[in-house]
């Protein structure tokens, strides 16, 4: 949080997304994340820059883990600070949503019995 805060930024918001094992998710023991890293890095930077433009004086940081992440562990953390709390919330939410929509990261669910399944944020694949 120190990376984004400052004397003029009174509100800071953090989002932490974890690998969940919800009622409909079956016995998922882990998620295997992979990325197109050369593109993911500049895309993260663009998203964070956009947040600072849309909410003046807001600052954001985002961190995404890759590789195998066990159920209950965190996969993504976003931190935003802004002069006013409404902007801190909005900027943080923006970064989370844009990351899910634009950053080339993929996940494969790993089930208890060893079965693996690709899983997407949106079901649309063919844009034809």
């Amino acid at each position, binding site marked *: 949080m120190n990376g984004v805060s400052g004397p003029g930024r009174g509100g800071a918001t953090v989002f932490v997304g974890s690998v969940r094992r919800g009622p409909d998710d079956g016995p998922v023991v882990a998620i295997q994340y*992979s990325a197109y890293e050369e593109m993911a890095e500049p895309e993260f930077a663009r998203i964070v820059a956009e947040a600072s433009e849309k909410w003046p004086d807001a600052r954001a940081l985002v961190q995404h883990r890759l590789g195998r992440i066990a159920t209950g562990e965190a996969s993504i953390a976003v931190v935003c600070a802004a002069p006013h709390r409404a902007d801190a919330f909005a900027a943080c939410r923006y970064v989370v949503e844009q990351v*899910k929509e634009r950053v*080339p*990261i993929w996940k494969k669910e790993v089930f208890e019995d060893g079965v693996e399944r690709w*899983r997407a944020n*949106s079901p*649309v694949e063919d844009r*034809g």
Partner: protein
Amino acid sequence: MRPTVSIRCRLFARYAEIAGREVVTVELPEGATVRDALARVRESVRNGNLLPERPLAAVNHTHVLPDHVLADGDELALLPPLAGG
């Protein structure tokens, strides 16, 4: 001989699994678009018909539309549905 462009195409995640490879280089006529490159990739790789005709695509690390015109040496990436977060 018509001039051509050489495009390095990268496949990720499920697409790499389908094709059994992560990179394929294709030669296309000058002026070729992302759409043209995708058609060629689908013909060139194993199980290419299982790849979607219009997947999400990026050129040189930026999202592009199918009409985007390619230049020699471009890196074209075929991106399965994203799942970050």
